[in-house]
């Protein structure tokens, strides 16, 4: 035994001394080293959301030089409200894309949530009267089914939300803006439970399940609203979700809360890592990052608290409500993905399903849960766009809503192959799409051109993803 060890001691290996050791591995780097590391990673194909960020900057420069009205405060605020719903739906899709799955039904599912919400509001809480007997009992049956499916896979949140939706429907809870929003979110969770169960437990490929449901939900919306009908949302609270603004004081309070929280979390984590001798980025780099975010947020908050009204009669100031809505969702979602066991498992299943299974992760449960999250977020997106439009029609969530959301996630840097992507990708990608649509509109381009350009940008983003993957596969190892 001792013979073998002396023979195989590391000193005998030719390259033994040349290689650095885990025991002395680098935990802190100088700024220069970190920058070189970053460049090396970029060259290795780990682009992240860099191309999309550059895209946002280029588009901002191009449109502000071409269209005088582009960089006005009114238009910027409008841009935020326009892009918010797609961004929210895209955030949900990031979870699904992280597993390398797809949810084609997220758009029409959000439409179903919007139409149930509008129907409940318009009929004063009487869904039975609004839907008719047969449809209502079918609707309740589907909610029960969703609750059972979620319970079978031990996704209790899905069960609970489905049952809340069932309760609101059966007890005829009176119409109220907050009840409507809760109902929409609960119906979204129920829809996600059904999609997820079919994919994860029954084992149908997600493409087929969600394609079928995409068609089916489109029909459901039509059934709920009626051919050619429109349900108006005559409610101040619902209208304000996408059209209202925070007060000036509220805007600055949001600024303090958001940037203060961000700085506290980032710096607190950084210095605790340094203290414990763990791998950490160089301090100047962290400080620069935090400083840049605070500065940018301060400028944006200041600009949005100025009066941006076109007429002298009304005064429009303050940060639009959609900003805190998107921020809250972004923070919660990022926390879940980066800091919780669940998020880690989502990445693991997306990276290597078999490895995750062997590590004792319940792969089916994870796969189902991402569809529940996607549909729930799609429901929140539905609330925002219904509020923006002020009504729900049979085309709600149809057309290219879903494709825009997938496009936003992919343009932002989420990989279609699974395992790679962050929630902020959806926000950055959504910004790219919103800027293109808004800017082209201001330039009075016909819809044909807008669609073609949007399509080409998406194609470009998908190529960047595929090429960077190929690069990552060839440069290392």
């Amino acid at each position: 035994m001792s013979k073998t060890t002396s023979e195989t001691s590391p000193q005998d290996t030719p390259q033994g001394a040349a290689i650095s050791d885990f025991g002395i591995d680098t935990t802190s780097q100088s700024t220069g080293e970190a920058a070189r590391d970053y460049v090396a990673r970029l060259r290795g194909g780990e682009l992240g959301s860099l191309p999309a960020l550059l895209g946002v900057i280029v588009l901002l420069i191009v449109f502000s030089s071409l269209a005088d009205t582009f960089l006005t405060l009114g238009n910027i605020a409008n841009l935020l409200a326009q892009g918010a719903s797609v961004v929210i739906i895209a955030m949900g899709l990031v979870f699904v894309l992280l597993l390398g799955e797809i949810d084609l039904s997220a758009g029409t599912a959000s439409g179903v949530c919007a139409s149930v919400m509008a129907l409940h509001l318009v009929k004063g809480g009487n869904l039975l009267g609004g839907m008719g007997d047969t449809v209502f009992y079918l609707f309740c049956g589907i909610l029960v089914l969703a609750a059972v499916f979620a319970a079978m896979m031990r996704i209790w949140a899905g069960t609970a939300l489905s049952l809340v939706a069932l309760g609101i429907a059966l007890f005829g809870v009176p119409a109220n803006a907050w009840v409507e929003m809760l109902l929409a979110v609960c119906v979204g969770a129920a829809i996600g439970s059904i999609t997820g169960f079919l994919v994860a437990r029954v084992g149908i490929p997600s493409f087929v399940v969600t394609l079928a449901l995409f068609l089916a939900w489109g029909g459901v919306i039509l059934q709920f609203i009626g051919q050619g009908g429109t349900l108006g949302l005559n409610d101040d609270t619902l209208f304000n979700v996408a059209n209202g603004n925070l007060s000036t004081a509220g805007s600055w309070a949001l600024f303090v809360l958001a940037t203060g929280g961000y700085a506290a979390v980032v710096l607190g984590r950084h210095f605790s890592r340094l203290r414990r001798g763990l791998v950490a980025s160089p301090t100047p780099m962290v400080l620069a990052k935090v400083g840049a975010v605070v500065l940018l947020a301060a400028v944006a908050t200041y600009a949005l608290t100025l009066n941006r009204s076109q007429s002298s009669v009304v005064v429009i100031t303050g940060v639009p409500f959609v900003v805190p809505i998107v921020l809250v969702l972004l923070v919660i979602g990022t926390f879940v993905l980066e800091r919780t066991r669940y998020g880690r498992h989502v990445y693991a299943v997306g990276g290597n399903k078999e490895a995750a299974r062997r590590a004792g992760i319940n792969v089916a449960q994870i796969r189902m849960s991402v569809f529940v999250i996607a549909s729930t977020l799609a429901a929140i997106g539905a609330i925002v766009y219904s509020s923006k439009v002020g009504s729900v029609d049979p085309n709600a969530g149809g057309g290219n809503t879903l494709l825009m959301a997938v496009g936003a996630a992919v343009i932002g840097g989420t990989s279609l192959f699974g395992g790679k992507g962050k929630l902020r990708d959806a926000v950055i990608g959504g910004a790219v799409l919103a800027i293109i649509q808004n800017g082209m509109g201001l330039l009075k381009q016909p819809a044909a051109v807008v669609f073609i350009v949007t399509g080409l940008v998406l194609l470009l983003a998908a190529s960047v993803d595929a090429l960077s993957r190929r690069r990552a596969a060839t440069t290392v190892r």
Partner: protein
Amino acid sequence: MSEPILELRGINKSFGPVHVLHDIDFDVHPGQVTALVGDNGAGKSTLVKCIAGIHPTDSGQVLFNGDEVHIHGPRDAANLGIEVVYQDLALCDNLDIVQNMFLGRERGKLGMLNEADMEQAARTTLTSLSVRTVKSVRTQVASLSGGQRQTVAIAKAVLWNSKVVLLDEPTAALGVAQTRQVLDLVRRLAEQGLGVVLISHNMNDVFEVADRIACLYLGRMAAEVNTKDVTHGQVVELITAGRSGDLGIARPETATI
């Protein structure tokens, strides 16, 4: 010789009509490397998967530390302290070394992660195994070489204070220097008092690190011998014919009488 930490008694396993394992008896001793050899299709990987709880066994007993245990899934095996390092490396490319080492058993309260704790524990483990070659424990596994990945996979198994580590062809895809590193690591595991099972096709590797050799032949245990009692040639005969001189399965005609 020490008491075996893991004993298999009369294990049978069929996949439909194919009887893959016939009455397998197999012992793993702490502080020793037991090599499991056999030709392709002899049932080595199936045996490992049965021990790991990936496949249920049809019949037979598993004794751990002398007590009978029932392994119904990977979790049961892990709870006993049995860890498997698979041939196709159960690592997630998109996660870093620390994240992979703690996959499925993350530390932290209320579903949250305690990254600092995990990073320190991972570094301690890697240092205790004198693992070289990786610059940072926060390196993504995708950018590691084959040997480095194998090292991470083995270190992952050790992190859990495991008692038995099963290695499925850990050196199959590696170059000379990397094979050396992994074999060193295997030896070090045994010196730390773990029961190590090494599946390998490479006789040089087997003779270099193994204390005992168990040879499977067409789903039967042909022989369990001490490495120092046999020669290279005898083991090759056991693998290809199931017998070598007095060792191995009796000739079919004598067995039927």
